């Protein structure tokens, strides 16, 4: 059985990678096969997968992870400005710098649990956001956002003899330009690595300890475990994921703004995780992709395009229908998001993964259930909803 589940994890990883890399093919019928959107799937998927390591495994609800996203972005853009347009150092720096911040913020915030923890993380994120807009303007370039300029030093590039022509340089992976599809494949690769690490953590003794903390933290202490370092590591790791995701945002579009750090952005990653399924392996990625997909579709509508869509409706009713529907689409798409969120929390706290499982169990009820308990998805159930 042990062997079997190890193998099934590899199958899962392989299937995940295949699904991610083949996105350009299977997203085509959905009209979502363009690089910009697929990059976002990968980036936010990574963000949510990392967030889930903290929230899903330990139950600690952080409202400050957007700060790490922002820090990752700023770091990457600075790496482009000062060192090189190569994305590898940028991502590395994003990860390291975010880790440093996560150590400090995590160490302090984790002295409290429950809602106090949430408020502490929120306070830190708000401080970062406010400072990025005000006194840290030399580093963040305030409201304009941090951008590349022609006069940037780029010492490594300069040393390698790469000169800047009249237009701004583009990010590259050892010469391959990171825009369009190559950019997507780069993000996809980072995502798959991130998924692999998350898979290992979920299955590891470390992951088991984190789930123990979520289940009964006091008991963990009486079992001889010091829960603080476990929690801190989970916090740091998930912060690093957010940092890398922020770095990837800068890779695909070398611009970093403070709005990325706003607390509503933290709310969004919570939402992705919940919608997909907290504490499941695949859920957060699915949640992120679903949200970004609907955001993309729904926010594209405006009154004119709606009027076309509802052409079939009788003339007199048309304005009413269009008005009601326009509440939910276009710039009102956040309303749909909020509703989706509420419906998930109310009716399906386990998220999409839970829904899939319930549907699955309807079909499998006819068969004997013994075989099912050993599949990876079942051991995933045990990891909590």
């Amino acid at each position, binding site marked *: 059985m042990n062997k079997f589940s190890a193998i099934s994890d590899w199958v899962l990883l392989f299937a995940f990678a295949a699904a991610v890399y083949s996105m350009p093919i299977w997203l085509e019928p959905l009209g979502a096969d363009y690089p910009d959107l697929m990059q976002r799937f990968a980036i936010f998927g990574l963000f949510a997968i990392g967030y889930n390591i903290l929230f899903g495994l330990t139950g600690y609800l952080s409202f400050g992870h957007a700060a790490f996203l922002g820090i990752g972005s700023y770091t990457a853009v600075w790496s482009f400005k000062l060192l090189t347009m190569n994305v590898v150092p940028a991502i590395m720096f994003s990860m390291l710098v975010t880790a440093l911040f996560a150590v400090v913020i995590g160490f302090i915030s984790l002295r409290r649990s429950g809602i106090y923890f949430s408020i502490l993380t929120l306070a830190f994120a708000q401080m970062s956001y406010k400072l990025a807009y005000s006194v840290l303007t030399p580093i963040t370039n305030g409201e304009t956002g941090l951008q590349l300029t022609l006069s940037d030093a780029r010492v490594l590039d300069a040393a390698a003899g790469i000169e800047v022509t009249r237009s701004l340089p583009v990010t590259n992976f050892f010469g391959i330009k990171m825009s369009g599809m190559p950019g997507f494949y780069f993000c996809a690769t980072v995502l798959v690595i991130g998924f692999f690490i998350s898979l290992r953590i979920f299955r590891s003794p470390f992951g088991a300890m984190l789930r123990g903390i979520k289940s009964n933290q006091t008991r963990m*202490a009486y*079992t001889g475990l*010091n829960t603080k370092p476990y929690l801190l590591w989970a916090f740091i790791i998930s912060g690093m994921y957010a940092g890398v995701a922020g770095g990837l945002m800068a890779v695909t579009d070398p611009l970093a703004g403070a709005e990325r750090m706003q607390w509503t952005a933290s709310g969004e990653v919570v939402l992705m995780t919940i919608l997909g399924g907290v504490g499941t392996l695949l859920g957060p990625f699915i949640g992120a992709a679903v949200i970004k997909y609907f955001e993309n579709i729904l926010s594209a509508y405006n009154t004119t395009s709606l009027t076309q869509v509802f052409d079939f409706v009788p003339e007199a009713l048309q304005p009413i229908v269009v008005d009601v529907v326009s509440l939910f689409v276009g710039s009102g798409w956040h309303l749909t998001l909020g509703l989706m969120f509420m419906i998930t929390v109310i009716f399906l706290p386990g998220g999409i993964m839970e829904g899939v499982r319930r549907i699955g169990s309807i079909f499998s009820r006819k068969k004997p259930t013994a075989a099912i308990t050993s599949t990876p998805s079942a051991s995933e159930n045990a990891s909590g909803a």
Partner: protein
Amino acid sequence: MENTVLHVADVHKSFAGLHALSDIDLSVREGETHAIIGPNGAGKSTLLNVCIGRLKPDSGHVVFDGENLTGKQPHEINQLGVVRVFQTPEIFPELSLLENVMIPILAKRDGSFKLRWFRRFSSEKTARIEAEHLLSDLGMETLIRTDAGSLSRGDKRRLELAMGLAQKPRLLLLDEPTAGMARHDTNATIELLKRIKAGGMTKVIIEHDMHVVFSLADRISVLAGGRIICQGTPEEVKNDPRVKEAYLGEEQV
């Protein structure tokens, strides 16, 4: 047989004016099974809570094997080998029975923190085999994959006993281990405790069931109103008039 492993010295503890423990002096000797009995609300659980660091005594201290336990973190006390089985079952309800027992085993083996994020939990072979043995010892081998939260109350208590035993503690503190168990489970548990007793593990056991007490204990302390009113062998305690008055008397009525 004579060396003291646990020494509770002059411990006081009060909750908002209520003296839950006063003047407690207690010595537990290596290898013995020491029972603490007393009426409801006598302070028995409070005494154990003080020993494992869940409560801080107002004054006095608890010494285990030369180490002062007062002021130590719960996990540090556990790592010294003092393990507690709670009165209301404290388990990990969302985890499987196997995981419930493996976590204490790993805590004992790896210490209070170890970042093992790349290994597979399920390939911790020795720990798993040990956990499976223990669970089947307690007659729960068929349940190892179920979530602990779905167990009956009696089974939860047995699981918690397994979690305590899994750490091979030097001192095991049991708070009414058989309460809430069906009769035959109680008997099985007593048998198990007797077997452990033969292994020489030091135990402090709180128990209401006199049948259990007298069949297990080497020595007994009687607690009433937060004070130890009598201490001695089962025979001595049985015949002590103060005990009859404070405790046994009630029961016989």
